[in-house]
């Protein structure tokens, strides 16, 4: 399988008097989809935040492409990590299309490699709504837009927090199609979920209980 693209090395993070994540070591490889599962409060989202460099580990390291970090990643690593959090990271006062255009500029996306806004909007099924303000979107539509925002970055590492939130049946089909395609293109995908069905075919389930690997 070669070297791990993303790895948690003895990773711990405490909040107050308890461990949200405790001594988690796990390796993720290119072209695989890893599902992070567990009960509410098991530490799934915290682990994802640590893997994204959003949270500083109390102990341990995150290794990205073999390079170890303990906290916020440098720019060239941030560029290669796509993050879809539990908030959609979009602006309600911009239209779907404007949101994509803004993040495209911000993430200095290479126009030669990435899909166009039209293609992305069509892929997530927002073509008709692309000129409406994101404020007017339903929960599922906002999630589709957030997915498109992450797709345009075309990062080799994808970190997704409950990606199927608010999605209807068609949206879930879209999600599993997108994830299958990502795997085929060698992306390393990690998705926090409590429901495996919408993800399609997963390669591995990493189950957390009380912040530890179950």
């Amino acid at each position, binding site marked *: 399988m070669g070297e791990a693209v993303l790895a948690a090395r003895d990773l711990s993070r405490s909040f107050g008097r308890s461990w949200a994540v405790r001594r988690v070591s796990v390796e993720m490889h290119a072209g695989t989809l890893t599902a992070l599962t567990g009960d509410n409060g098991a530490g799934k989202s915290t682990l994802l935040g640590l893997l994204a460099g*959003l*949270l500083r580990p109390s102990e341990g390291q995150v290794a990205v492409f073999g390079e170890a970090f303990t906290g*916020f990643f440098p720019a060239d690593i941030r*560029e290669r990590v796509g993050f879809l959090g539990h908030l959609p*990271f979009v602006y*309600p006062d911009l239209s779907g299309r404007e949101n994509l255009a803004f993040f495209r500029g*911000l993430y200095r996306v290479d126009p030669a490699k990435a899909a166009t806004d039209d293609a992305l909007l069509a892929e997530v099924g927002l073509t008709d709504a692309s000129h409406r303000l994101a404020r007017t979107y339903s929960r599922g539509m906002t999630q589709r837009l957030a997915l498109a925002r992450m797709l345009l970055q075309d990062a080799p590492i994808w970190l997704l927090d409950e990606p199927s939130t608010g999605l209807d049946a068609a949206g879930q089909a879209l999600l599993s199609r997108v994830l299958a395609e990502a795997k085929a293109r060698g992306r390393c995908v990690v998705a926090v979920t409590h429901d495996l069905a919408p993800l399609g075919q997963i390669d591995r389930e990493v189950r957390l209980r009380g912040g530890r690997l179950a």
Partner: protein
Amino acid sequence: MSTLRGALHILAKDLKVELRTREVFLTMTLFAILIVVIFAFAFQLDADATRAVAPGLLWVTVVFSGNLGVARVMDKERELGAFQGLLLAPAGPMAVFWGKAMGVLLFMLAMELLVVPLALIFVSISLPTSGILTLILTLFLGTLGFALVGTLFGAMLADVRMREVLLPVVVYPVVVPVLVAGVKLSAWAFDPAAEEPVGFLPLMAGFDLLYLALAPWVFGRTMVE
């Protein structure tokens, strides 16, 4: 270089949203006008009292409505979590700080462009031609200083409970040098025949220079883990 590009990109986005919603501008401007009216009314200003009170009134208006503006700007960033997306972008935290600070500065200057002439009319104080440049320069330097500190603290406290109280509690003391210098210099602008207040312009410029360097550094150290 990518920092500047990122900052301008964020600024352009803020301007686009603001031109569309006018939310921050309207919030600040309405609040500022209310302050002027309530003050003028509550203190029952006559011509003599006006001269004494006007410079202070002007700066209280700038600082209070500026505080409100900073809070609104940050609320809009946080609404659907986009601020986190900005920080994660390769452009980095410095670009985010400069983009947001330039936006706050422009919004405040736009508000002042409308409110200051209105305030002068309301309290019927005359501004001699020779004082116009002084007033503009003072307002610009003072607003710049406020925008730097306000943007930094606004972003730092955006996720903190009790931020509505904490933001003014920490912002106002820090910007007092700007407030004092602003009041003294604007009083001189209204009455250029009076003795020139020495040392206040360097104080204001020094304040701006110091926080031009310090505020982005602190932002970079505190906004990411």
